[in-house]
């Protein structure tokens, strides 16, 4: 760029700039002082010295820019002063000539431009002549950096002064055609100055920094009010493209093409696409065509979508493919171009899948030819591939639509397993977010095809890292959520049952690592279905049989989960939940199925829970659940209650035994059952209650720790009293009074402590409750 070799390091640059700025400030100060005294010639001398700093060779573009900004900012004061003079008719025309005697050319031209602008503003001169003069005179500075900034000053200050009328009104003011000519000339000169130098590598960074100066010409052109589409097509674009193509420099070409796209309005692009795209084919081999094409496609797509021009899409597709076939483009760029093409297809023709299909088909063909396979999500190709697939997901949302792109799945298969899982999961996330349901078998099949790596253990073997990874767990959680999207169209429970049975098969293929994420979801979907059947009882044939099938399928799910899961607590709770759901739906077999669920959970407590704490808490949960049921037969309740009592009295710790027995005693009393006539009754088995509580008392007495013993006795007392007051004749006043006595005896042996005081409190509260009934005999 700057062909001199004396560029300084950035620390030195800073110092050099500071030096120069000091001169600028000092001279500007002087200039303004003379201006205040209206001594124009003196002021101009200082202006000239100030501008002399812009002759430097030693600053890099960014530092030079700072110097330029400060200097031209000071020039504004001069311009403002002269404008005032001119308005009062006191700005002599000779001034423009006078400053041409300035010694060096850079200050001279800055001053000429400033004065020229003032004269033009005041309407004292022939605009077209002055503009022509200035743009030609600037040729005198051929140093790239200085020349570019000088011409930038020319374009900046003439802003708003350029002729912008469609027709010539006054001969000397010119028309928009003159303005266009002015900019195109200036642009051509700047592009030459900006062009590559021999020291290519070294100057590339500088060129990247300076490019905006060249682009400013185009911004100005685009700002001309009377630049209409036809002039753009006939004058501006051909002029610019000719410059671009003929400079044979990749940096210039890529940047300028982008500029054209960015600064001119979309309507212009739409009208000139053919010309623009054919120029693209003539660009240098090293130009990144993906950037250029993506940029133009992005700009026109909104407008194109409104116009629905079929030709437009094919024009882009054609250009893209001709560039791909003639150039040595990196594979990731090829994919990236297809992303832009697919976006265009989706925006303009979302409903006509054939447009998008051609994009995905051609991409597949190209990638197959290149032998692309097993791309990871972090490889450049893999990354772009995921993006192009996600693009379809975002556009269509629903898997049923995505599978209409026949190349979607084969393209997915060019990725490795991990990346395929990611693409699948984003489809599901999208469907969950937009609440797009899976409503029939066909859609479910589509899911199965595309989601194989996410669902199927046979087709994809997982490594240990896969399974333990956070990604895997997130994806499986998403899959679990997605099961709730399965909703048969039209609220028909039979259809939903069919779909869920298919889901069961699908999920079953997931193997031991996926099932724990997916089966619980399916189970709750089945519960929901059961409720749906309950509501639709009148409309459904063979209702009892179908209800049975739903709950048997649910049972089978829990069983499977239990077999593979290794954990007991989740299946245990699911069995209980299933029992409660079944209990609320009175179908033919529901009592036996409720019993089956409960007995299965009881078996888990008995056979698998070894930790006494979880055994006890599970017994509590189970007891509560059984108390809630109302459909079991008398025999079944008795069997379950007896068994729970048996497990309770076999618990490891005495204290646990007492607590469990106290809790399960109520099973024999208040649990509801159905007799042969279908009538709901309560157990009311006082004998059983009595024997359970007697056993509890016995165990309590064996408890060796005094404090714990007292507390247990108070617990038993409370329970006894509740049965007594509920009319259980087997719990007598005498027995209660006896227990109160035992509590007092045991308590008397306690040393006085915080704990013993707590016991006092507990007992007194219990006694207060009993007061009025049997209190007289207890306050002895």
């Amino acid at each position, binding site marked *: 760029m700057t062909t001199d070799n004396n560029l300084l390091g950035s620390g030195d640059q800073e110092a050099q700039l500071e030096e120069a700025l000091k001169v600028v400030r000092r001279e500007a100060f002087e200039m303004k002082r003379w201006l205040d005294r209206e001594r124009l010639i003196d002021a101009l001398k200082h202006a000239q010295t100030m501008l*002399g700093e812009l002759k430097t060779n030693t600053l890099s573009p960014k530092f030079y820019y700072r110097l330029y900004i400060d200097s031209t900012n000071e020039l504004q004061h001069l311009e403002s002063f002269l404008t005032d003079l001119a308005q009062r008719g006191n700005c002599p025309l000779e001034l423009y000539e006078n400053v041409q005697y300035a010694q060096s050319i850079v200050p001279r031209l800055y001053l000429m431009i400033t004065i020229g602008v003032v004269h033009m503003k005041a309407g004292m001169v022939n605009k077209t002549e002055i503009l022509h003069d200035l743009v030609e005179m600037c040729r005198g500075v051929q140093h790239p950096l200085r020349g570019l900034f000088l011409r930038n000053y020319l374009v900046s200050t003439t802003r708003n002064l350029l002729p912008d009328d469609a027709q010539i009104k006054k001969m000397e003011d010119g028309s928009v055609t003159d303005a266009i000519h002015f900019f195109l000339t200036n642009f051509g000169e700047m592009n030459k100055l900006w062009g590559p130098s021999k020291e290519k590598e070294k100057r590339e960074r500088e060129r990247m920094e*300076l490019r905006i100066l060249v682009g400013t010409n185009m911004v100005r052109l685009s700002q001309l009010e009377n630049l209409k589409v036809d002039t753009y097509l006939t004058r501006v674009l051909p002029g610019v493209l000719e410059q671009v193509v003929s400079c044979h420099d990749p940096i210039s070409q890529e940047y300028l093409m982008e500029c054209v796209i960015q600064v001119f309005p979309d309507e212009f692009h739409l009208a000139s696409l053919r010309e623009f795209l054919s120029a693209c084919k003539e660009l240098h081999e090293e130009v990144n065509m993906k950037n250029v094409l993506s940029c133009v496609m992005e700009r026109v797509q909104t407008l194109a979508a409104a116009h629905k021009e079929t030709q437009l899409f094919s024009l882009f597709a054609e250009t893209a493919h001709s560039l791909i076939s003639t150039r040595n483009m990196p594979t990731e760029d090829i994919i990236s171009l297809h992303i832009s093409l697919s976006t265009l297809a989706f925006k303009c023709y979302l409903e006509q899948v054939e447009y998008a299909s051609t994009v995905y088909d051609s991409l597949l063909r190209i990638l197959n030819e290149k032998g692309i396979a097993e791309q990871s999500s972090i490889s450049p190709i893999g990354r772009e591939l995921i993006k192009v697939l996600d693009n379809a997901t975002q556009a269509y949302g629903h898997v049923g639509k995505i599978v209409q792109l026949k190349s979607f799945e084969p393209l997915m298969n060019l990725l490795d397993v991990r990346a395929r899982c990611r693409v699948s999961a984003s489809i599901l996330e999208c469907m969950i977010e937009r609440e797009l349901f899976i409503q029939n078998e066909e859609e479910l099949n589509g899911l199965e095809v595309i989601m194989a790596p996410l669902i199927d253990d046979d087709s994809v073997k997982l490594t240990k890292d896969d399974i333990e990874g956070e990604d895997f767990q997130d994806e499986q959680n998403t899959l679990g959520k997605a099961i709730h999207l399965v909703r048969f169209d039209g609220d028909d429970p039979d259809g939903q049952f069919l779909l869920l049975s298919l889901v069961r098969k699908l999920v079953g293929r997931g193997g031991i690592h996926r099932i724990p994420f997916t089966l619980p979801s399916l189970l709750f979907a089945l519960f929901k279905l059961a409720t749906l059947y309950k509501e639709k009882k009148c409309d459904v044939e063979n209702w009892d049989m179908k209800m049975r099938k739903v709950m048997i399928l649910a049972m089978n799910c829990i069983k499977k989960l239990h077999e593979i899961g290794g954990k007991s607590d989740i299946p245990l709770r699911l069995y209980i939940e299933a029992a409660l759901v079944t209990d609320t739906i009175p179908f033919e077999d529901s009592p036996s199925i409720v019993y089956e669920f409960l007995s299965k959970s009881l078996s888990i407590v008995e056979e698998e829970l070894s930790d006494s704490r979880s055994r006890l808490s599970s017994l509590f949960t189970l007891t509560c659940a059984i108390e809630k049921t109302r459909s079991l037969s008398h025999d079944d309740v008795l069997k379950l209650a007896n068994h729970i009592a048996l497990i309770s009295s076999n618990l490891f710790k005495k204290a646990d035994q007492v607590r469990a027995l106290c809790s399960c005693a109520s099973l024999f009393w208040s649990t509801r059952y159905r007799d042969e006539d279908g009538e709901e009754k309560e157990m009311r088995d006082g004998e059983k209650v009595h024997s359970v509580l007697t056993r509890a008392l016995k165990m309590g007495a064996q408890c060796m720790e005094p404090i714990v013993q007292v507390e247990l006795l108070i617990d038993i007392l409370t329970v006894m009293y509740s049965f007594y007051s509920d009319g259980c004749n087997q719990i007598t006043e005498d027995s209660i009074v006896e227990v109160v006595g035992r509590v007092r005896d045991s308590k008397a042996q306690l040393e006085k402590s915080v704990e013993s005081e707590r016991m006092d409190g507990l007992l007194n509260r219990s006694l207060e409750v009993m007061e009025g009934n049997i209190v007289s005999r207890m306050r002895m």
Partner: protein
Amino acid sequence: MSGTRRKALLKVIILGDSGVGKTSLMNQYVNRRFSNQYKATIGADFLTKDVMIDDRLVTMQIWDTAGQERFQSLGVAFYRGADCCVLAFDVTNAVSFKSLDSWRDEFLIQASPRDPEHFPFVLLGNKIDMEANRAVSAKRHVTMAQSWCAAKGGMPYYEVSAKEAVNVEAAFQAIARDALARESADTSDFPELENNINLNENNRSSSSGGCNC
């Protein structure tokens, strides 16, 4: 003209995300024109407008800037010496509101004004003509913008439409007033020069190696 003060020159910078309407705001204010076409801005440059602020004639130099970073490849030297900074966002685009903090911070770092705490900023929420497309409901939006402004030391907030010229004039008038107040508060622009005037030192620059072209 002797004895009168030089006409004040106020430098105002407009910042904000690409597409929020910085160029349109400036064009509406200076030229009273509006175009629906989107044209990106490259680099930065200014338009000037003479205005009367309390019987003082002021030249406003309004700098329009590129919202896209890649069109700012020469850096932001033009921030320096600004008298006021206008932050603009698009009321239909929530992202452009979120960017305001970084635009403000960036400005304060690069322009390094003497008293950053009290440097005058003004916030403009543009495109209120597109009410129906607002990112959030109009009422919530105003509250959001106002509380953001309050957190920034009571920055003035204007809801404007460059398209329909709503509030644009009023906002810039207020901006000029703020900037002018600040300019008068500055005692001297170049205090370091007072003891350092040497009219004969003009030739230093020729030693820096510049040629005569």
